[in-house]
């Protein structure tokens, strides 16, 4: 098993963006190196309730990389995000120009040697720093990591595309939602609306609505038709009277009415997620993404959140991504529906 690589000019910065997020979420972080990509992964238990992983193309992070293992040249290790953060911050701080990283075994006491990731940097000062590891992970553990990595972005009928400011606003709002409710009802519509609502025992209702977000794929976008009113594909067959058409008149109704309307038309994808879960998921906004995609996976089993970095990545928009998968709160659902109907 061999791993030795030279960071690209942006490689350290990329890792330094993501490591703090994992550090905030949990005490453990798995790193998976494959011939094509690098993944920083936290599973459900490690992150406190969500599956989150940053995926980076190997070429984005490393200029040169030597990777050999008996397991299809994949290596997985587990480390403390805090110590990785410290090393990466140091590398950025010391303005290192040439950074190498390798997997080593170092003798810490006579007879016992432990694995480390050794960062060797040259610049104004030359520094060698070690990050202690658990691992390398065995074949099964690596497979588990791959399962998490590959699970995302499937079975999501459509995505809402939030720009940076909207993502930050959503994060800020959810941060405050904590004081009111433990569960947030998250709803997306094909008309490009995102609704986040929570309530406290029926006494306090609190919500944030965002309209006009992009819908991906574009073929699912119903923004125009929802505004035009009447002419929409989803409105045509219902034969509703002129008085209740969505569209311009809809402007006068409140966000709750609009959400109810979308639900009634089957236009909304709804999922209940824990306020804490959602807040933790949105903490990825600290990595300075260009935009975020939100999607309720088919049948509302979970909610997917993807942070995109578009032109920030040298190797194209798909070179870097941060994916989050949130579980939904299923137990509460029935109760909440009953409450709503009261």
């Amino acid at each position: 098993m061999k791993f030795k690589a030279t960071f690209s000019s942006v490689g350290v910065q990329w890792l330094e963006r993501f490591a703090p997020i994992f550090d905030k979420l949990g005490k453990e972080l798995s790193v998976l190196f494959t011939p094509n990509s690098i993944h920083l992964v936290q599973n459900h238990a490690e992150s406190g309730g969500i599956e989150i992983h940053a995926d980076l193309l190997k070429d984005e992070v490393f200029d040169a990389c030597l990777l050999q293992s008996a397991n299809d040249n994949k290596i997985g290790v587990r480390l403390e995000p805090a110590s990785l953060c410290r090393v990466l911050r140091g590398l950025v701080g010391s303005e290192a120009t040439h950074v190498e990283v390798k997997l080593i075994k170092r003798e810490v006491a006579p007879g016992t040697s432990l694995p480390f990731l050794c960062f060797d940097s040259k610049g104004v000062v030359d520094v060698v720093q070690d990050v202690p590891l658990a691992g390398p992970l065995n074949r099964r553990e690596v497979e588990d990591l791959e399962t998490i990595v590959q699970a995302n972005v499937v079975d999501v009928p459509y995505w809402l595309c939030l720009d940076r400011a909207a993502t930050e606003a959503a994060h800020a709002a959810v941060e405050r939602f904590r004081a009111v409710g433990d569960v947030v009802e998250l709803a997306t519509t094909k008309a490009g609306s995102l609704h986040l609502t929570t309530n406290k025992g029926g006494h306090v209702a609190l919500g944030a609505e965002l309209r006009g977000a992009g819908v991906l794929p574009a073929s699912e976008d119903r923004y125009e038709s929802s505004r035009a009113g009447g002419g929409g594909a989803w409105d045509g067959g219902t034969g509703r009277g002129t008085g209740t058409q969505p569209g311009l008149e809809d402007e006068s109704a409140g966000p709750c009415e609009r959400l109810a309307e979308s639900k009634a038309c089957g236009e909304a994808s709804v999922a209940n997620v824990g306020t804490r879960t959602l807040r933790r998921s949105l903490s990825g906004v600290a990595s300075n993404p260009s935009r975020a995609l939100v999607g309720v996976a088919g049948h509302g089993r979970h909610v997917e959140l993807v942070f995109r970095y578009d032109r920030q990545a040298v190797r194209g928009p798909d070179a870097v991504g941060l994916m989050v998968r949130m579980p939904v709160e299923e137990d509460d659902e029935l109760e909440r529906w009953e409450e709503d109907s009261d």
Partner: protein
Amino acid sequence: MAKRGRSRSPRARAVHAAVMDDFVLDARVEHIRNFLNVLSVVKLSKKQHVNVSVSERGVTFVAVDDSKSLQAQANFRAEVFSRFRVNASAAGGTQGPGGTGATSFAGSFGIALGSLIDVLSVFAPMDGEAELSLRWPDRDGRLVLAAHVERGNPERPLQSCTHAAVAATERDDGGGPGGGDIVFRGETNAFTLPAHGLKEIVDDLEWPNAPMAIEMSSDPNVLTFSAAGQEIGELRVDVDARDGRGLTEFACGVNGRWLYRHAFAKAATALPGALLGPTHDRGGGDGVDAPTMTRVAIGEGGMLKVVHLVRLSRAIPHFGGGGGGGGFGGTATGGGPGSRGTPTQSATPRAPASYVVPVTFVAYPEVEMSDGEYDDFGDEVDSES
């Protein structure tokens, strides 16, 4: 008073035509953060209930602490809001006594202040970007809050709307407007000083863990704050009350010494930094930079009244602060040298750049007893509540 009509949504009208033609209160708050700050000051206990009364002159939040001997009140006058519309006729059955025509009283409701503050904190980051709309009641009698922000290209603007509804709670005093209030009357003594000064004094006197005494006498003018604890001994703060010195106002009709529970004094002076204003007058002379002033009055039976004249400035800095001298602060109209306001006198014909919100606390005095008795008394009050 700004009073502009606006047609309600056709839908809402259709649904509620018979029940409710309109909201009784329809107001817009421009400075959300300060609005939140002021309400936080009024919050005396963890589960604070407030009565909100709405009249054409403004909105008043009244909170009484659990022992019913401290009352906090924030009065947002109509001109504080960027839009303020009251429709008393929409109040229907909720009309309070004496609410017919002669008075401007339009309705009142109770609300859990903690919930309102939790909700407002979601809106606070939008300060300066959006206006907060406050409406009451919706069809369930709730207070409805909303704020809209729109940006992006006009073809497909990104519209975000934050919305909330807080249920009104049962009024627990059963009275009409002002019912159950602690009434302050018969003012004998008063003095005015910057809020931060008073806050510092009260904070300093926390140490002895004893009731705080205010002692006043005239000729020569004396103003002393003190607290005497068993272990610490007595701590005194003498304020220079001679004419033309530290205090803006000093009136002493009755010489005497009054005791107040320190917790009350602390609650009554605990303004957050944002509401204290600059801690020293920068001498700009335009009043906008002046520190928040506090007027303390002592009335019949030693009742204490503390009024903070909290200034809500516009969230977005406006030029031409010269207009600000009008409201409060006759003290600050002297016009320091090098005043920077002059070139923009004509800039804001529309209103002063800031408004004053009086935040008032009224507290009963502490009856003087020996220490042991005092403790018993305190326990008794707590267990009652």
